[in-house]
């Protein structure tokens, strides 16, 4: 029996949607998602026309199957009124569908005033959510019942933010802002994914959306930002190293990845791609984080994108302290 990492055996797999939501749509984090009625309306239209067309087709195939000696019956070869009728009826139906889709879209598009604003930055292959107080996290935490507006951009290629439970999706385009808003009515944890193909680790560009109660949210925000001050810098830096996804390219055990390993890198002199040399000190690390393309170590590609605006100065300091410990 196929065993999926010890989690499910094939026989135990849920046959249908036993994991929340309806057969077609996943669990919603809002009470009345504007999209759902439109979805089911279209589904009904689809089902109606599919069974009409395929039903008639099947009926004709059986009823008028070729029989020896039986000639096809004469019918008219055109009937303008009929043609107009079956052009106009679908036209009316799609008109209704358009309007429903449009109305729901406008509702999903126009953010109400007083939204809680969170900045989102997509980068290969990680999400960074920055809160009004300057704190950044790699998962999205939002308060319940409060409209939240995400102002989004990307530092490298196009990404797309999708939260199935909230029925929202919007691309993150480098060089500009896009935005979405939503209001989560149900506390819980939901999935957030990247749906615009963005490279090798596209399928790992995931995050969680945690909907807190109002008090919990404030408490979380306060506590989450605190580790920078409560922990020793090197330890805080280690947490940051994990959260910001530095580990994806820079190992701490000496193996070369997309970028140089951080093990023992501090204090040494390295050759640059353009032939010069550089001593890896506080300034160089700071520059490498903020202007990664400025000085590339020999043997590496200039592929890292900047963290300008994504890390605070204090955070960089903790990262430097962390790198110093890697000997």
């Amino acid at each position, binding site marked *: 029996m196929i065993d999926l990492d010890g989690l499910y055996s094939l026989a135990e797999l849920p046959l249908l949607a036993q994991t929340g939501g309806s057969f077609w749509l996943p669990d919603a984090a809002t009470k009345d998602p504007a999209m759902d009625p439109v979805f089911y309306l279209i589904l009904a239209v689809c089902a109606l026309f599919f069974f009409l067309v395929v039903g008639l087709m099947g009926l004709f195939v059986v009823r008028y199957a070729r029989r020896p000696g039986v000639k096809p019956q004469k019918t008219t070869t055109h009937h303008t009124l009929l043609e107009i009728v079956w052009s106009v009826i679908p036209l009316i139906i799609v008109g209704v569908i358009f309007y429903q889709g449009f109305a729901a879209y406008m509702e999903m598009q126009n953010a109400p005033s007083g939204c809680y604003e969170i900045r989102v930055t997509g980068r290969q292959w990680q999400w960074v959510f920055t809160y009004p107080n300057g704190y950044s996290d790699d998962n999205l935490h939002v308060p319940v019942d409060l409209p939240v507006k995400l102002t989004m*951009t990307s530092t490298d290629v196009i990404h797309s933010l999708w939260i199935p439970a909230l029925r929202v999706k919007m691309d993150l385009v480098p*060089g*500009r*802002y*896009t935005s979405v808003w939503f209001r989560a009515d149900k506390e819980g944890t939901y999935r957030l994914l990247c749906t615009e193909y963005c490279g090798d680790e596209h399928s790992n560009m995931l995050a969680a959306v945690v909907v807190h109660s109002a008090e919990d949210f404030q408490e979380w925000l306060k506590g989450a930002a605190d580790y920078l001050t409560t922990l020793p810098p090197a330890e805080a830096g280690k947490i940051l190293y994990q959260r910001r996804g530095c580990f994806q390219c820079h190992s701490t055990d000496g193996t070369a990845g997309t970028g140089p390993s951080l093990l023992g890198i501090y204090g040494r002199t390295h050759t640059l791609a353009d032939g010069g040399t550089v001593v890896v000190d506080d300034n160089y690390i700071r520059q490498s984080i903020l202007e990664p393309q400025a000085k590339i170590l020999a043997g590496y590609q200039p592929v890292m994108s900047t963290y*300008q*605006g994504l890390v605070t100065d204090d955070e960089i300091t903790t990262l430097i302290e962390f790198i110093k410990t890697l000997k």
Partner: protein
Amino acid sequence: MDHTKTPSAPNSASQADVPLAHVVELRILLTVFAALIMLTAITVAVSYFDFGAFNLSVALGVATIKATLVALYFMHLRYDNAFYATIFVIAVGFLGLFLGITMLDAVEYYPDVQTWQQSTR
């Protein structure tokens, strides 16, 4: 679409002396040339005056007159089967459609680019 209007109604019988195409008069060609050169001079000349928002329209208007002259006389559209002119106009129409909608969108979303540029500067 009446098929007799499309080029070569196919049942044109075997014919040695059906003319293949119209021969444009010399005088017309020379006149058109003179007009084109004059229009070029005009468009260069007016480019030194400022019509504000109409600068582009004036330049493109003159260019369009010139292009029409070239198409009508040098390219024989005036004398040839109307179908050629039709498809040429349709092509320009599709150019306009492509350009128009794309520009409409680009202008609409440009503020999002501007705010981004301001915030990163």
